[in-house]
């Protein structure tokens, strides 16, 4: 058995201490520690993935205490893929943060703690252990949101802290109910013992309800999403990119595991109301989230509401409860993380050039930052679901699964959401490419700088020595450009290889839907 799966959690936690311990000696300790952690995480995730590819699902007993009493870590196709996703996103955000900040050692400690928490969520096989990791994730996120300097960030962080803690507590309460009724916390063991107690036992039903509502708060489904737009909009760009890609993803993943690994499709057959309600909640979330996104003028808030809608779609895929739709949900889970992280980095980078991040500020930005704008547009259309990007693959499977399962409502909602997604992105892309830049933006600079603005996007990269001092040099860092372009290329490439992704998820789902 490989220890790599445990090290996925341990390495970031240990390295999280480095910036605090050595930060006073050398200013860039934090960044270095984060890079080392991200690379180590990537290596470990690759080891786990290759092990899964070679032998299939494997488990690891922490401290050699045998489950169900000891804590069990589980790696299969889904968790290995998501662990890899964590590594990639961490690496990308750390690279981006080198120039974009926040440039404090505390930030990197928080980031690594968050990495550890999320990795833990993806690999654990134990309900209480899952709670611990969710709390680590939550606490680290509250701290990271508060690293924004503005008073709004503090307020958003507080709001997130209160609402998120209630969500986590509800989850813990639900786990308690299940523990009382079954006497175990291990997921595999629970799947075996819950049927003995009976799916219609009030304890089990209450436990399910509490857990699902708790996780729905964390995944930000409407109307439990209220913390999320504030938290996304008020945090620094690097933080937004990271938490939008991974935090809600962790909650949605936990929901997937609990529905299928703990309660199993047999529960759906015994208590159909449970998943029906979840489908309705998710569908409402898709429509309302998309409509609210259309109403926003601040692009970060727009992307935040877009996440509400996309997570609605993902959870709808999980709740349709057949292999095709769940596959779609998982693909969209991975795809959304890549696309949304790229989009947030893109907004952050372009906002620096545009001087603001409302839709109108972006008018004519494509001329001033052609590469980043093109990548942003590609990501936008990928999220809309234009083939061959990964957004299409996920939505397609969800729609197909919904039709297979006779849930026509979900199929219709998915198509409507595609149109609404197109509406709010088309608005931005139209401004970027077909509007003239506002006159006053260039008028207050010297009369000769109109032409210069066009060149900054391409030329700023190379000079590492002199700090950019004047205002009009506020171009886009190479790091940001690379991250956005890689995300755009990744979204398309992942879409082309979606069939392989399906093949990776297939053995996991086969067990659940045998």
């Amino acid at each position, binding site marked *: 058995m490989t220890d790599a799966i445990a090290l996925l959690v341990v390495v970031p936690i240990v390295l999280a201490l480095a910036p605090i311990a050595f930060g006073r000696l050398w200013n860039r300790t934090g960044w270095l520690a984060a890079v080392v952690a991200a690379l180590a995480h990537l290596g470990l995730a690759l080891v786990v993935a290759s092990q899964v590819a070679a032998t299939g699902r494997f488990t690891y007993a922490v401290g050699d205490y045998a489950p169900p009493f000891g804590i069990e870590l589980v790696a299969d196709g889904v968790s290995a893929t998501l662990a890899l996703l964590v590594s990639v996103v961490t690496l990308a955000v750390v690279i981006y943060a080198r120039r974009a900040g926040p440039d404090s050692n505390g930030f990197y400690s928080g980031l690594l703690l968050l990495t550890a928490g999320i990795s833990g969520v993806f690999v654990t096989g134990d309900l209480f252990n899952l709670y611990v990791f969710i709390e680590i994730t939550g606490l680290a996120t509250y701290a990271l949101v508060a690293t924004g300097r503005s008073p709004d960030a503090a307020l958003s962080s507080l709001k997130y802290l209160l609402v998120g803690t209630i969500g986590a507590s509800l989850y813990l309460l639900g786990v308690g109910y299940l523990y009382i009724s079954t006497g175990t916390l291990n997921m595999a063991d629970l799947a075996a013992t819950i049927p003995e107690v009976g799916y219609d036992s009030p304890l089990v039903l209450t436990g399910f309800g509490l857990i699902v509502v708790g996780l729905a708060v964390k995944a930000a489904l409407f109307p439990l999403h*209220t913390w999320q737009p*504030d938290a996304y909009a008020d945090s620094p760009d690097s933080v937004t990119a990271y938490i939008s890609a991974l935090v809600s993803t962790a909650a949605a993943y936990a929901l997937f595991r609990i529905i299928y690994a703990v309660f199993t499709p047999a529960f759906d057959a015994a208590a159909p109301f449970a998943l029906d309600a979840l489908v309705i909640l998710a569908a409402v979330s898709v429509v309302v989230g998309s409509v609210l996104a259309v109403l926003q003028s601040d692009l970060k808030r727009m992307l935040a509401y877009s996440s509400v809608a996309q997570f609605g779609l993902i959870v709808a895929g999980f709740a349709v409860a057949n292999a095709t739709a769940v596959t779609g949900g998982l693909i969209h889970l991975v795809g959304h993380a890549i696309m949304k992280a790229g989009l947030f980095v893109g907004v952050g980078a372009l906002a620096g050039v545009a001087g603001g991040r409302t839709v109108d500020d972006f008018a004519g930005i494509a001329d001033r930052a052609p590469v980043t704008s093109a990548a942003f547009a590609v990501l936008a259309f990928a999220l809309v679901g234009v083939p061959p990007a990964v957004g299409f693959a996920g939505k397609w499977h969800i729609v197909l699964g919904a039709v297979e399962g006779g849930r026509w409502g979900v199929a219709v909602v998915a198509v409507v959401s595609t149109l609404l997604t197109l509406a709010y992105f088309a608005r931005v892309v139209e401004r970027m490419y077909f509007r003239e830049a506002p006159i006053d933006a260039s008028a207050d600079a010297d009369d000769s700088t109109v032409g210069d603005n066009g060149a900054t996007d391409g030329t700023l990269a190379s000079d590492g020595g002199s700090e950019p001092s004047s205002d009009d040099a506020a171009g886009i860092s190479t790091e940001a450009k690379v991250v956005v372009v890689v995300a755009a290329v990744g979204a398309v490439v992942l879409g082309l290889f979606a069939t392989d992704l399906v093949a990776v998820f297939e053995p996991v789902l086969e067990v659940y839907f045998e």
Partner: protein
Amino acid sequence: MSGAFSAAAATATILASEPSVSIPTADVPTAIPPAFVVLAVALVMPFLSRKLGHALGVLATGGVAVWSLLAPAGTYLSVTFLGFDAVLFNVDAFSKLMGVIFGFIGAAAVLYSYSSEARNRQTAFALGYVGTSIGTVFAGDWLTMVFFWELMAVTSTLLVWDYGGEAVRAGFRYAIYHGLGGSLLMVAVVWHYASVGSFLFSASDGIVVGIPAALAAVGIGVNVGFVGLHTWLPDTYPRPHVAASVFLSVYTTKTGVYGLARAFPDGNLAIAYMGAAMALVGVCYALLQDDMRRLLSYHIQSQVGYMVAGVGIGTALATAGAFAHVFNHILYKALLFMTAGVVIARAGEQRLKYLGGLGRALPVTALAFTVAALSISGFPGFNGFVSKGMITAAAHNEHLDGIFYILLAAGVGTFMSFIKFGYYAFLKESKGTWNLKRSVTGQRVAMLSVASLCVALGLYPDALFALLPGSTADAHPFTLGHLGEGFVLAALGVVGFAILKKPLSKVGPGVDVDAVIEPATFYGMRGLVRGVTGLFAVVDHIVVDLTTRSLRAAADPYGAVRGPLGALVGGDGENLRDGSLRASIATSVLLVLVVLGATLVGLL
């Protein structure tokens, strides 16, 4: 001369029964569909030199012919496209035959294009057209087939448009016809999928009977030129570049015949009668034409009528005959368009009444024309005789006397119109003497290789029989009865032409249905365009209005909500400011509790 032919035929009578030739097979690369190779060449063509581009074109199409010949039956490549099983290519008796002839004639036509001064762009479009046609005939399922079918319509339209001038408007009418036909076929295929649950050819025996079959018949009917749906054919084919006409005369209609055979593997009597009608109507109009390529175009309809009749009769012999005729027809019709092209290019004239005496000026072309004319007319010893005979024999065996006699009458007409063509173009004394540049080597190689194949397959049909689908067990081309039939038809043709020569030269080109259909299309399209424009204006107004309102609402959402809400609540709504819709912390917690409460109440 006819004595020599009958002697050769008499010895061949003994041979012709079961095919004595077997086709060699070999392991061929199957990683990519053959169509993609041709399409790839079409894509790079505009960037290459003329010589290299055309050489690659000849290699690719010739390669497809060899590949098709050697590929063992049953070779296929299946892929999954969006959850549907699709078969990108599938080699069986039908597609093998089509692949061989499409590839061979493609190579000959590209060579002819090169020596007829065709530009790279035109040949690129032509290769695109060839590639999509090959894709259509190798498709193993309806989805792939319709996909390539539509692309074939697009590429052939581009090929027509490329020439400019009059070809543009004709190409436009061509596009409308094929757009409609393709859409009907697509509806038929979707309907077929809905009732069978699979696009694969192997999943069902032909297309589902009832409305899908009717839609498919009409949709494919546009491509093969059903009477009434055929006007695009003489309208389009005479107009583009002479080399483009060679391509056009081969692929669209024959792909249609192939599609018809896929859709109706057991035949259909109505289709058989339609085929006979096409054979007769086409030849009658052909007799009246003066423009060479227009005459040949009507003959396409007439000859395709034989094939459609063969597919419609549906017995093993009829199917074999139909596909033998596809093969032979492609050879001699492409050859006829090549010779007509040489005449037009050299004499600068495409109307027969201004030509004459070209036999001496263009001897090789005249020889090739003679072979092609004897082949299409079905003179014993040439390939058309064999395949036509198989179809008429099949009609006779099934006691479909109506079809049998109509096809014989059409045969007489074919003799007459080609005697007319040959007489006016090559034999008749002309007023002046032609001082022409002769055909160039490339054109000669292309024409003579096709012509020799016409003769070879006419004398030794077993080589073709080995390739055919259906059964050739009942095919006895060289019995005395059949030979007599051929000679009698030829004699009737000569006599008929001698009698009708004077009146024919007085009659104009005749009034085809296009006299009605073209204005109808024109005014119909104009009405449609005006209606659509009007409707669009209305819709546009509504949409713009709605968009303006929603954009205004989106730009100032709170302002948009304020009015109605103020009216609802009764206040002036002034306290509803930017941001006040955001939930406070307390509201958020309340919402969590409400959802939790509702969930638990529901669950318990």
